[in-house]
């Protein structure tokens, strides 16, 4: 078995397991990008990528809310795939610093549309889950008690499979695609355009966080704290005479 295949299987199992926490069980937030990316990159041997990716994707997806039957794009799967692809491609290409940021942006742009695929697989799992319910409803009286807990947990397997399968396919495909694209990319794009785009998307993440705050005085509170923070940072780093 090649190293890539071994790593992809490990990533799929870990990502699929963590993605269960998103809606199916626990919901103790181990499925959030801020946890998934650092843990995964620690295992892949490049913690820095994970910390940066954790901040980046957590902010981009901070406003994702599962409301009623609406399930937003699966941030766990997207983060897992993008982080894994960034770490592996950076290793293959011998990239550090802004080079890694470039790969991360490419991965984001490429993987994001696949969010629809993940949601479809999850939707299949959710439709199939009705069968577990119907089985309990139609079970003979003496078996209802045993079936209730067992059938409820069967749903977990489907969610795990949906997550793992999506990650497995996307990582294998994503790594090769991004490697090829990056190798053929003009220098200006790789060294300037993509790192600037990364920073712009980070700002977009902050905007996504701001978007969920819809209170009357929020602009005032926000502006006030920007001014205070700016003054504090200025005094801390530039001193009283402005450096």
């Amino acid at each position, binding site marked *: 078995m090649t190293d890539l295949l071994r790593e992809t299987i490990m990533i799929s199992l870990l990502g699929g397991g963590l993605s269960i926490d998103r809606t199916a069980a626990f919901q103790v937030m181990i499925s959030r990008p801020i946890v998934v990316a650092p843990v995964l990159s620690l295992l892949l041997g490049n913690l820095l990528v994970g910390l940066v990716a954790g901040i980046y994707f957590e902010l981009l997806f901070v406003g994702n809310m599962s409301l009623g039957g609406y399930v937003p794009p699966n941030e766990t799967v997207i983060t897992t795939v993008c982080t894994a692809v960034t770490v592996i491609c950076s290793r293959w290409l011998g990239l550090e610093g802004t080079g890694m940021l470039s790969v991360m942006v490419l991965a984001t742009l490429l993987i994001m549309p696949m969010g629809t695929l993940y949601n479809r697989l999850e939707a299949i799992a959710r439709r199939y889950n009705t069968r577990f319910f119907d089985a*309990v409803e139609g079970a003979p009286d003496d078996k209802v008690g045993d079936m209730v807990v067992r059938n409820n947990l069967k749903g977990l397997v489907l969610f795990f499979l949906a997550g793992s399968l999506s990650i497995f396919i996307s990582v294998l495909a994503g790594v090769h695609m991004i490697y090829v694209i990056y190798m053929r990319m003009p220098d200006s794009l790789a060294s300037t355009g993509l790192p600037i785009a990364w920073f712009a998307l980070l700002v977009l993440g902050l905007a996504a966080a*701001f978007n969920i705050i819809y209170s009357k005085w929020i602009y005032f509170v926000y502006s006030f704290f920007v001014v205070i923070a700016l003054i504090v*940072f200025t005094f801390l780093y530039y001193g009283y005479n402005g450096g």
Partner: protein
Amino acid sequence: MVIMVDRKTLIKVFFNSLFLQSSWSYERLQGLGFVAALAPALKKIYRNRDKRRIALRRHVETFNVHPYMASPVLGAVIRMEEEVQEGIRSPDDIIMFKKAVSGPFGAIGDRFFWGAARPLASIVGVGSIMVLGIYGVLVFLFIYNAFHLWMRWTCLWRGYSYGEDTIEHIGGLELPTWSGRIRYLMGGMLAVLAVGITAYMPLPGLGGIGDIPLLLFCVMTVSLAVAIPLLSILMRKGYSIQTLIYLIAGPIMLISFISGIVE
């Protein structure tokens, strides 16, 4: 009033409630998860197997609530089941209670947990990672889970203590008011984070705080601080985060691509 369910059984219910959405389906929602969480308590309440089966069947129905807010509902339903067993309440009351709280508790939970508590923990977590590195992840998990698990357990216990009066208890917590307060706190923290990002995660090609002139630092910070609410206006106009990612990254990449060709 006889207490039939002990603390140990409630702990089992609490543990099972963590799997409330394991078999979530479009048609039945959390129906199976709810009855699976309730099962240990029903086993304690109904020693007679036939009565227990009837009780289980009663709860095999469509049900949906915010996953954390299922705790007070579970607690209250256990107390009401005890009253049914004692013959002082009709089983129909339980079904009506579940239907009555499903919508409001769902809305309160969505607004408070998904709309305020979790984003706040995320912002604190992001800030913590910038300062503490990998330990920031632990800060995020501790802050969020210490609070939310305590809340889930307390609401289950109180729900069991108060029965259907748990509605007043949840109302008394004033979670919507707290959501508003948390949002103001988030606004303040987001402002600090925006300045921190300019300082510690600078635009590629430029130095961080201390390396660049003060005026440039101030201009960059203010520009970034203004860009954040402006971009959020686009989101409120209906642009999804996915669309905006391409709308923002696309032109930047195109300009740098063209400038590379020109050079």
